[in-house]
Each structure stands twice: as structure tokens, then as C-alpha cells.
């Protein structure tokens, strides 16, 4: 697996970027995760996850417009790369296989 492996939090971030599609930048991703998953996300943790994902080639980014509420700083919008899509699919695949492999009696409580 090596570099292409996805951590749990990374997976969430990557999926959220995909969900937000055109509007995936720092704050929107953070808020979306907080809303959907009902968990606190620190700017630091998210930022590291984003740069790590970008380094691994799962994400690419480009600068958008500067807005006054950002103090004149531009937004950096993220998009999932095909490589990223593959990684996500792979994770889903593994999960699916695992689910299928569970004998039906295992969840009889």
C-alpha cells in the first residue's frame, strides 16, 4: 500500500472535497465535516490532512478569488484527482469485500 494508503480522517476529507465539488476550500470543508459527522475539526488537523493528500496526489488545488472577509487573501480550491478517486474506490472495494465476507450468523445477537 505504502504511500497510497488513506487514513480514516484523510478519507473523510477526500470525500468531503468530492461532495463540495466546486466549492471545496479550507473553511467550507471544515464546516461540512463538522456538520455531517458532528465532530470538531481543528484548522491545524484539516490543513495537514489537505497538504498530505495533495502531496500524495489525491488532490490538486488552485487559487480562487480574494474576498474581504478573508482579509484580502485568496481561497485555495481543492479538487479530487483521478488518482484520488481510485484510492477512494479502492477503500470502498475493500470494505465491500469485507462486508460480503461476513457470515450472516456473525451479526445474530
Amino acid at each position: 500500500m505504502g504511500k497510497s494508503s488513506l487514513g480514516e480522517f484523510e478519507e473523510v476529507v477526500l470525500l468531503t472535497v468530492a461532495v463540495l465539488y466546486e466549492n471545496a476550500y479550507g473553511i467550507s470543508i471544515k464546516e461540512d465535516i463538522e456538520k455531517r459527522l458532528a465532530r470538531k475539526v481543528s484548522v491545524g488537523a484539516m490543513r495537514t490532512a489537505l497538504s498530505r493528500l495533495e502531496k500524495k496526489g489525491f488532490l490538486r488545488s488552485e487559487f480562487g478569488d480574494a474576498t474581504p472577509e478573508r482579509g484580502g487573501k485568496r481561497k485555495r480550491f481543492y479538487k479530487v484527482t483521478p488518482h484520488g478517486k481510485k484510492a477512494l474506490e479502492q477503500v470502498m472495494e475493500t470494505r465491500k469485500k469485507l462486508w460480503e465476507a461476513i457470515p450472516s450468523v456473525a451479526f445474530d445477537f
Partner: protein
Amino acid sequence: MSGQTQISPPKLPLRFLRWFCSPELLEDVEGDLNELFLLRSSTNKSKAKWLFTRDVFMLFRPGIIRQINLFKGQNNNVMLSNYLKIAFRNALRYKGYTSLNLLGLVVGIASCMLILLWVNDELKVNKFHEKGDQIYQVFRNMKQSGGMVNTTASIPKPVGDLVAEEYSEVSQVAQLSWLMNMDLKIENEAIEEEGRFASPEFLQMFSFPLVIGDKEGALSQPNHILISRSVAEKYFGEDWRTEAVGSTVKVEEQFDVQVTGVFEDTDEKSTLDFDWLIAAQAFYAANDWVEDWGNGAFETYLLIPDETKVQAVSGKILMEIKDHTKGNPNSGDEELIIQKFSDTYLYSKFENGVVAGGRNDYVRIMSVVAVFILLVASINFMNLTTARSSRRSKEIGLRKVMGAAKKSIRVQFFLEAIMLTTVAVAISVIVVILVLPLFNTIVDKSLILDFSQSTTWYFILGLIFVVGTLSGAYPALLLPTFNVIQSIKGGIIKQSSFAVFFRKGLVVFQFAISTLLIIGTSVIYQQIDYVLNKDLGMNKDNLLAVSLEGDLASRLETYKSELLRLPQVTRVSAASGNPLNYGRSTSSANWEGKNPDEGYEVNVILTDEDFVPATGMEVLQGRGFDSQLKDSTNFLINEVAAELMGFDDPIGKKLSFWGIDGQIVGVVKNFHMRDLYEPIAPLIITCIDPSASSLVLIRTDENTTDALAAIQKVTEQVNPEHDFDYQFIDHAYAESYANERTMKTLANIFAMVSIVISSLGLLGLASYSAEQRSKEIGVRKVHGASIAQVLMLLSKDYGKLILIAFLLAIPFGYYFTQDWLNQFEFRTALNPAVFALSGLIVLAIGVITVAAKSYQAASVNPVKSLKEQ
């Protein structure tokens, strides 16, 4: 961008963010934070600020922090991080060696830190006075006709007056009495406190801070007194700030003074200590003897603002006493010298009228010990690293093949040393913090490692640099010289004979230092032992001194007979001071056949007829005092006095002083009135006026605790208004050598430290050589060598080294210890057995260390070691 003005996130965190954040991320991250801040501040502004700060700190993590680019555009930092990584891996791989190495360094560095903290503290004593550089103390050299010079700080008052009036170079003169114990009675509550009389200039010259009162006027009138904060709290309780000033104090039931101020308690940073200060005029008015040029009175301090004038002042003041006492029959041969006040603590010992060291000797010794210990620890590092360098030979070879210059390999090993040292120093700091409380009780100080001071940090950084360089230098020079082909080919690199020789030399050096320290310790130990157990000419055991408080001296006979009724008390005698620490003297003694031109300072003890039996002194000639024989104008003298006066048979010779004419009836055996640094002075014992005594000496039986309780009871019955103040003569005597005993303990500890570190190094070396020779040992065992023979083989080399170290240490040890002993007038002889024993101890420790390690190697089944390969 009108909106920008509304966004005002906290400045400091923002600047921090801009500083550490990697430039590619900064714009976006900062924008995000701003947006969040705006959002949050719509609900709660201060919380938003706090959250902003928190977020910035949460961002301070790898991945976001920019790369440190010391050498932009070069790959140095890559190499540097590689060096650190390799160093780290190596350290972890050989955990045993790393911990040996670290342990040695930590013990060494921690000891060194403790010593230097102590030294630093010593150097700070009396240095807090703002005008400290300009204050000079006057000392008086009294030349004895025997060629000896007594130096004292007690200066005739007219000297100070004259200097104040006539010397233009001196801007102020302050006079300060010796420490006196006086009864202070405030609102019917009388407590004994120690303090001094001081002239008004004293407070202006020295920087003793006042809590209340002004330095200009606080001592200007004879009825002025200042008290310390703790005395004020004791008398006036919580309201001392408002109540103390202006209240009346009755001193010794004799005169009234008014409190004009309160000063901060004096602490250990000052050798001048006092709990009260009374205007010197009060003392002068009551004691007109101070006006005489011939009588030593207060300590005298001069303020000389212009340093270039100091020479002139010391030239002018030299002969003042002699010039002003010309024609006076009792005038002595005296000179005045001045010494910078801030130097008086470390250089307090005078020999023949010139400064001859003092505490500074100890400060120097300890500094040298600190350096030695650091050296020993660094040598460990060098030896362990170079001895084991063949482990790294492949790495070095490969680096070279890949194009590394010698220089860069050198840098690598330096970095490695510095990295390990940094870790060691960090651990040492923790160790020091943990050990300091214990150390403080040993040296009786309150040392702290003060991190708020920049000097502490410089010190720590300096230590890392010095130790790192010291221990990294040799490996860094040696290792890059390895031959490429040999090191790549692997196997054991034969190190140059010089490298081996050098390493052995270092081991010798280490053990020589350890032996030296052990010799030093043993000699100090012996001397202290000698001092404490020397026959002082009297029996100091079970002898109690109780001071005669209030008017008890006038009721002496009653008191004595009450005491003698106690079953625990065998003898009682009044005396004018502790005979083992006595300094009252006269220069006006006259005797038959004395050359009138010669002046002698002779000690005088005032006592009663029971003095000799009570103290257990020995009468060599004539007889002691006898209450039946009306001895009030008869004197006893000691051997030194008899010799000085030049009598073959002193008995019956006439002697006079202080206007008393009498004759000598006996000679007592010399006893030590001062510490053993000084020769025994001439002495006259008189029983003319027992009521002038200041204490009674009570000889008790063995059970001193019971005796003390009984004596206290009697004393409090006879003298109910005053505190019971006592000391055991032998305790007081031991106490006066507290410094020496502290040094003894310290020397002991650090000698141990040094030998422990050396042994650690030896352990490392021995286990390494055992490992390297494992095949050889295997072969030898196969051919029938016994474990003992193998042990011998492995230990022999190191044994030889330690022997050489021992031989080297002897002459230095002899020189240094003899030098130290020489300052004692009475000293133990250097014993060759001490040297032999020290050598033996070091040899034993060394050999045991090596043998223990070698035994492991020797007892391994040869099959195991030979099977490899």
C-alpha cells in the same frame, strides 16, 4: 477592501503564523483563519480571539512549518539531517554503549554544574553594593617583635576621623562596630539581638535597602536605632510598618534610643550582618577609650571614588598610627593597609601583613575539580567513540566512495558529539534540579538554577559547546582518516599505533586525575580529623560555656555555688571568653628585663581561681591559682609567653599590665586560643577581677543532656529575666571548622564522581576489547587456557595503565596537598600510606571493573565464539 478594517485578529499569533508557516500555504491558511475569526467574532469577540490563537498553535506542526533553509539552494541541510538521523540510529542500535556514554557525561556535567553554581555564589558575596568598587576597608598590621605580624580590622577611631577630614581623595568614611549581642527592650519585652554600631555614612556607602526611613538622617543622632524587618515583625507584629518608627527602645537597661527606620534582613550575600544598627556616637560617648590612637576600635571603610587615587591613599595612610603615637611609651609598631571591600570575603587571610588567600583557595580548588571532572567525562566519550570506530568503518568508507570529503565526515562526528552532549546536558539539568536541595544542605547555601536569567542559558549553551567540542574533536580528527579500501572490505580495522597510544594515554590521564582527587580527599580528611582530635592543651569535651547575662557576673559567687551543688557539675570557672577562640589582648604588658623599644601584643584572660582545673589545663612550672593564697595579683602565663619574656625560670618574676603589678606564679602548657591556621600567641591569665568575666565554663559529667537541663534550670532561677545562652566548647570548636568540613564532604563526593566516571569509561573499553578478542579467547580456551588465565590476559593491560596513572599522580598529589597543608600552622604529616591506599583503591576499582567485564567474555563457551564465521 473596506471590509479589511473590520478584521482585526490578534497581532502576535498572526505574526507567529507568518513566521513559521510555509510560504505556499500561508496565504490560504491565513485567509481561512481570518474567515473563521470573522464568523466567530460575530457571536463573541474575545472568544474568537482566543480560538484564533489556539488555532495558530494547533497549526504549528510538521507539514505546515516551513523547511528550515539555513543554506538555501545547497543540499547541506539534507546531509545535516542525514547525519542526525544516522547518529540517532547508531545511538539506539548500541543502547548499552550509548547509555554508558550518556551516564558518564550526565554525572560529569551535573557535578560540574553543581560546583560552578557554588563557585558562582561564592563570587557573588558582598558584590551587591552599588558603590562596591569604590569601598575600601582599612586593616591594621601590628608587628610583633618576634617578626610576626598580626592583622586586624579593628582600627583606632582617630584614623577614620583624620582621613575624613584631611584626605581629599576619600569622599566618605564609615565606621562599623563588630557584632555585639545586646538586650533590646521594647514595651517591656526584652530580646537579645545581634547588631552593630554604625556611623551615619555607613548606610549611604553600602547598599543595604531600607524598608522605612531615609538613609541620610536615619543614624544622624546618638539616639537613633534601625532594626531589621524580622526584628520589627517580632516586636510589633503585623502592624510594624506603622508602629515601629518612632517607638523607644531601651538598650541593655542602660540608655534609650528611638527607632528611625527598618532595613531588609541581611542575607548570605553579605558578610556584614546585623539585626540592629545604632548610631556610633552612642558608643563613642560611653567609651572614651576609642579616642586613643593606640586602641583598636571599629572597622573603618573608605569611599574612594577615583580608582587612580587608591595608590596615593594607601601610601598616605600607611604610617598614620606610628606618626601620631610617636613618643607614647606603649606605642606599637603598626602600619595601616587598605583592601577593596568586595575582595575581603575571598581574600581574608593575612600572612605577615599581606593578603595570602582565604576562601578563594577553596573556590579555586573547586573550579579545578569541576574542570577535571568535565575532562574525565569528555575523555570517556572520546575513548568510547574511537575505540568502537571500526563499527562505523563501513559507513565512513561508503560515504567516502560516494564522494564525501574528509571535512564533511568530520562535521558529521562533531554533530554527533554535540547531539549526544545536548541530550546529556538536558538530563543533567533535571538531575541538578533534583539534587540541589541535598547539595544545599551540604554546602549550607540556597543555590538555585535560575532559568529567568540569561546567564544560566549562556552557561548551558556554553557547556554543550565546550563538552561537545572537547569530546567530538578527537573522533572527528581520527575517523575520517580511515583507509577507504580497508574500511569497505570490512573486518576489523587496525588502528594506527598512535591512536591506540593516545587512547591509552587518555585512560592514564583519567585515572591520574581520579587518583589525585582521592589523594586530596584523604589528606583533607586526615587534616580535619587531626584538627578535631588534636590535643588542644585543654579538655574541650563535656565543657559547657554559659554566658553571663545581665548583672549575673556581679552575683558570680552565688551562681557558682548553686551550679556546684548539681551532681552533674564537677567544676565551674568564670572567664572572659571561650579559651579556644580568644582574642582579647594588650600591648602594654611590662616585665622584668623587657626591652622598652619592643612592642608585644599579649593575650589576657580574665578569670577566677578555678580556671586551670575547670578547663583541664596542665601547669608545667610553679603552681596554679589557689583561693587560699590571695592570688589576685599573681599571674599564670603560657609557654609561649615564658619564651617571649626570655625567662628560664619565670616563677616569681614581676609582670605588669593595665596598671596591675604582680608576679608570675606558674606556667601553663600551651593551648590553642585561635584556629590551627595560626601559631599560639603569648598569654597572661589573671584572676584579679572575676566579675569582669563574660561567661562561666562548666565541666559536667558524661551525660551532657541531663547536665544541660539541670544547668539551665539553675541559671533561670538565679537570673530569671534573661535568656539562657550556652554553647558546648567542643561543638563550637567543630563549628569553627565548618568550611573545612564542607570541603571535606565535597571533595569526598567529587572524588567518587570522578572515579565512577573513569570506571564507566573503562567498562566500555574493556567490554569492547573483550568483544574484539572473542575469537582469540575462544582459541586459547580450546587449547586449555583457564578462565583465570584469560582474565589475567584481559585485565593486565588496563592494570598497567592504572599503575602508570598512579605513579603520575603521586608527585602532583604530593605537591598540591603539601601546599594546602602548609597554610595550617599545625598540621598532620603527609603519610605515604595515604598515597598507597589511594592508588590501591583506584587500582581495585579499575581492575574489578575490567575483570567483571572480562569474566563474561572468558566464561563464554568457546564453541559459541568460534562457530561464527
